[in-house]
């Protein structure tokens, strides 16, 4: 056993499809290099499973550079694993040590049903955006980009929120499976910019209504969401969402 490789025991959630019940299955991962990403480690396990004729573990992933938001594993009880501000695909095995036992689970929330193994359906997020997470401008006829000066601090704050990659770790980590941070990020991003003002009330009312309809839990201001967020979107945006919704509710006719 050299210091650049390790052997691990994985406990992975296996579930055939949405209808069937799942269970944990143990696998040995041998000769894992410290330079591998967590997903590359799973690739290795899958190659071995395939060679043995066993169904490989299904997990979502795509860009493997921390921006598409597709990867989504709860690793030893923490969404995206032990590192701060890191997606699973950017988590490298040097964060683990030889002999570790690692439990791998899908995001668990009623609005994110498991499709297979570690793959979940996060289309609830899309539906939340579809009811109001946009500025209603059709293509063409936009004024010059510099016609509307925006203070740098506002643009920067909007960018802080706009960085959300829609991975769903906030929901996965929240003890209530609440989607507040996701909704707050979009409401905050557009609400901080002048372009987003005309639809500000409408947006927050619609998005919160859809969030509720999807069956997410309610925020209890704990902060687990921000703590696991790969883009470190802060609690401030949730406060802002609360404020916006309150104002919009009072003005609602």
């Amino acid at each position, binding site marked *: 056993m050299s210091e650049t490789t390790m052997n691990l025991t994985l406990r992975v959630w296996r579930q055939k499809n949405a209808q069937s019940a799942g269970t944990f299955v143990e696998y040995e991962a041998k000769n894992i*290099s410290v330079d591998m990403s967590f997903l590359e480690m799973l690739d290795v396990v899958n190659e071995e499973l395939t060679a043995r004729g066993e169904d490989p573990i299904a997990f979502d992933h795509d860009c493997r*550079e921390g921006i598409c*938001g597709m990867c989504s594993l709860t690793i030893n009880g923490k969404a995206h694993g032990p590192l701060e501000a890191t997606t699973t695909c950017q988590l*490298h095995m040097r964060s683990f040590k030889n002999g570790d036992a690692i439990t791998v689970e899908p995001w668990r929330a009623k609005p994110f049903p498991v499709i297979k193994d570690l793959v979940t359906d996060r289309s609830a997020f899309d539906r939340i955006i579809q009811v109001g997470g*946009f500025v209603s401008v059709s293509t063409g006829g936009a004024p010059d980009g510099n016609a509307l000066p925006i203070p740098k601090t506002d643009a920067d704050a909007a960018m802080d929120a706009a960085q959300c990659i829609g991975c769903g770790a906030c929901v996965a980590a929240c003890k209530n499976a609440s989607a507040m941070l996701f909704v707050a990020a979009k409401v905050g991003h557009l609400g901080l910019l002048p372009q987003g003002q005309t639809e500000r009330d409408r947006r927050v009312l619609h998005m919160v209504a859809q969030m509720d309809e999807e069956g997410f839990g309610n925020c209890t201001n704990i902060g687990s969401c921000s703590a696991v967020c790969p883009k470190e979107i802060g609690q401030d945006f949730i406060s802002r969402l609360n404020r916006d919704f309150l104002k919009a509710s009072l003005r609602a006719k």
Partner: protein
Amino acid sequence: MTLESNVPSGPLAHKWSKYKQEQKLVNPANKRKFEVLIVGSGLAGASAAATLAELGYNVKCFCFQDSPRRAHSIAAQGGINAAKNYRNDGDSIYRLFYDTIKGGDFRAREGNVHRLAEVSVNIIDQCVAQGVPFAREYGGLLDNRSFGGAQVSRTFYARGQTGQQLLLGAYQALSRQIGLGTVKMYPRTEMLDLVLINGEAKGIVVRDLITGAISSHGGDAVVLATGGYGNVFYLSTNAQGCNVTATYRAYKKGAYFANPCYTQIHPTCIPVSGDHQSKLTLMSESLRNDGRVWVPKTAGDTRLPQDIPEGDRDYYLERKYPSYGNLAPRDIASRAAKEACDNGLGVGPGGRGVYLDFSDAIKRLGEDKIRERYGNLFEMYERITGENAYQRPMRIYPAVHYTMGGLWVDYNLMSNIPGLFVLGEANFSDHGANRLGASALMQGLADGYFVLPYTIANHFASTKQHKPSTDAAEFKEAEQEVEARIKKLLSINGKRTVNDFHRELGKLVWDKCGMARNDAGLKEALARIPALREEFWENVNVLGDAEALNPALERAGRVADFMEFAELLCLDALHRKESCGGHFREEYQTEDGEAQRNDEEFSYVAAWGYSGVGNAPVLNKEPLVYEEVHMTQRSYK
């Protein structure tokens, strides 16, 4: 056969206006009678879907990811070019046009590129209106940065996540239309075949990746915005799912594949760390604005980079290209790195890396300023390598990043198959043999927001035939073919995994048809690829069911297509006996090692037509006619 580009006549600067003045329109009441099938939901696909739906067309949009927001456009970091001239530094539409033509090594179509430069300004306006949080100055106006291959600052950016923000802008516009019911979105759905009726593109066959159900969708036009084929190299900066399947299926149905050998190698990627590597990670080229590239002057220098004195370092880009220095175009910077490593000067594991050093910039501007500009990239670098680049230079190495080649399209962005439109990276049109930094985002959005909506109307106004029934024999036949292929993949039960085959193919193509190519190597590849493909169909091991989520099966289908496509790629590279842009043939170089074009013989687009697996494809040529620019030897010295 000579292909007709359908570029309007008249002075270059007026071609697009002229086109718009003369084009035919579809009246609003008739628009909803037309159904458009859009495959892909990246910048090009999402912007096209949103815009066409806003105009009143019925749109169906398909993507293999679980949400349109995850398309790989999201990973673009550096920025988007636009000829706004907000800096007052001499930029203009003409200059952006010229830079793009020159950057593409005079292998792009003038008319398309000028149109791209023209609409670039509208893209910024549109994105700002959507709420894209571009970087701003304290005065509140938009900030710009400079980028490789340009001497003006025309790149708009949103931290190091410009692609993400532009894609989310397009995604939000698309989501609005989905919410309004004008776009029907099909996520986790992969296109597996194109359906032609009477020679026109009228539908697609798709697989629902969750249930495995195969179904057909008919429409009045099919739009492919399915990105590039960089994953033919196995290791690339593309996302794992990026594939050639949609465009290759269209090719097999008769669409011409143009210039596949024009592949771009990006100079600033994180070097390979081992055999387990599943992808390469790019760091924005904008790093080259402040980082200096160097290698030790002597081979085998094992000192830590910080211990190597100035005198023992070779800042080779600054030395060879004094006027552009570290901002030399991508192909040139990439080859220079390869050359340094081939000469044994490379650093890091395996000697495949060069230093990108920020210590001067940190001295000049302070660590905070560098953190503000590139903080996320430095963090990304540290996460992957475990090294802190504020304290020691980054190690970088080139990696496959973008493919300029793609399906052939005319000025209308329509392929040689009527009704089949191709947008963004999937087409070949605007970047010639090499793409400039921050131009991919520009092209994707230009095609989707501002070009296709005009040209598709022109097409619809001149065709009468409407959406076919999916009961037509052509659909049933295509469905059966798709099902048979899936069945075959699952029935082989061989010994090697899909990844194993893909890795072998990728290594072969990278070695023989990567950063530098030569006659012997390409011929060797062309001999080995068919054998590997044969083995694949006899010895691949794909487990699981067709009627369920089966990532290995999805991957197998894509790799099967790469197995055929790789041959086309190498064939094109072999046939183009010149060096230009991303296509570098070792036999054709100047004395000091620069790419040597052969304008006499190769100033054309090579558009290949399919003629059966293993058969030589048919070469069709579109001559490149330069009315405005004078072709010169590209020089960045």
